[in-house]
């Protein structure tokens, strides 16, 4: 297999390098890719959508149909990981482990019985005490990470950023919580069901914005139709439409990242996490 692979690789690579000789030189301003469609985007974006970041405008306005299905692909990937990995326990285990929060005493209690007081938290057999320094630092850091994520989504019109990056940063903040504490802490704040529902809601916001434009009498995803709903002129309506769509993308990406992480890191059992 190694020899065959090497031969195939060298043959294909040689062919591609032979073809690369015909490419336009790197950083050539007159290359065909830079002269056909993109000058229109660069010169007209500010007039037509009032968004300075051309990438955001093209992503969510000119090519919004494409981006909608990319979001759908991410959503389906989340569902695929869930279906592949998630295992539901058919029978409850015979004994559960509970730990007293203040003293650290661990108890083994038979199924069906509750711990003696409310100070006990349920733990798994693989439980290891989380490090105090890491826990404290992450607890202080997570709000700032989340504010930064929201800023990236909201300020995507004027600086690099947008729904995808902001969504990933928000998802990463929750993953940090899962790593520094444990997966149970995350599930307590953001249940699996909420995660799955928000995933779908993100895609729905995106597609719903497009459908609303259709209902208001213009083409699918033509945000200037939103002008009558948002009480602004059609150019600003396109800018606001981009923001709404980016929020949908952000929600969908955030929840998919958390969903995939919790399934992969706990092997679908939602117990201990990393």
């Amino acid at each position, binding site marked *: 297999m190694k020899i065959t692979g090497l031969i195939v690789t060298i043959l294909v690579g040689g062919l591609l390098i032979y073809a690369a000789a015909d490419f336009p030189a790197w950083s050539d301003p007159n290359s065909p890719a830079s002269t056909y469609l993109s000058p229109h985007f660069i*010169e007209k974006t500010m007039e037509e959508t009032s968004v300075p970041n051309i990438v955001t405008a093209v992503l969510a306005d000119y090519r919004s149909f494409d981006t909608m299905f990319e979001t759908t692909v991410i959503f389906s990937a989340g569902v695929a990981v869930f279906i592949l990995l998630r295992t539901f326990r058919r029978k409850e285990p015979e004994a559960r482990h509970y730990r007293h929060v203040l003293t650290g005493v661990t108890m083994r209690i038979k199924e069906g019985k509750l711990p003696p007081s409310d100070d006990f938290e349920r733990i798994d057999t693989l439980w290891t005490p989380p490090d105090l320094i890491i826990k404290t630092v992450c607890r202080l850091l997570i709000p700032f990470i989340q504010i930064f994520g929201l800023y990236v989504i909201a300020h995507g019109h004027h600086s690099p950023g947008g729904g995808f990056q902001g969504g990933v940063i928000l998802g990463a903040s929750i993953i940090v919580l899962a790593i520094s504490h444990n997966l149970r802490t995350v599930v307590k704040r953001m249940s699996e069901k909420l995660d799955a529902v928000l995933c779908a809601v993100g895609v729905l916001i995106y597609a719903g914005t497009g459908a609303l434009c259709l209902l208001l009498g213009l083409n699918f995803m033509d945000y200037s139709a939103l002008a009558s709903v948002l009480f602004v002129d059609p150019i600003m309506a396109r800018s606001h439409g981009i923001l709404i769509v980016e929020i949908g993308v952000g929600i969908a990406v955030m929840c998919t990242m958390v969903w995939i992480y919790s*399934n992969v890191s706990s092997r679908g059992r939602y117990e201990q996490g990393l």
Partner: protein
Amino acid sequence: MSDLISIIVANYNYWIYITLMMIGLYAMIAKNNLVKKIVGMNIFQTAIILFYVSIGVKKGATIPILQHGHGHGAHTVVHAVDYVNPLPHVLMLTAIVVGVATLGVALALAIRVYDRYNTLEEDELLAQIREK
């Protein structure tokens, strides 16, 4: 000498993209471990992104965010030569995020295989399947 440098600079991005792509292809074909294959798949994907981004570069141009004042700013004239081609960036931005989602699916499949056969090595997997 300067001719040689200009030829290298004009083509180096394309050569490296082909090299990376072939490294990824070789890893996907010949590596024995499933996680290594997934790493190879990601390298292959990054190579294609490198190709697309290299296409969009223009000499002497700046990042594709327009300079603007307050208001609509429609009165300032924008020249396309001053800004990098934004179209490949848009295509590749979504490709990266979709890439991480497919990476999640691939890792989920690998974990499932490990649960069933207790190994990630391709030859051991094939031997176990043949025994049955």
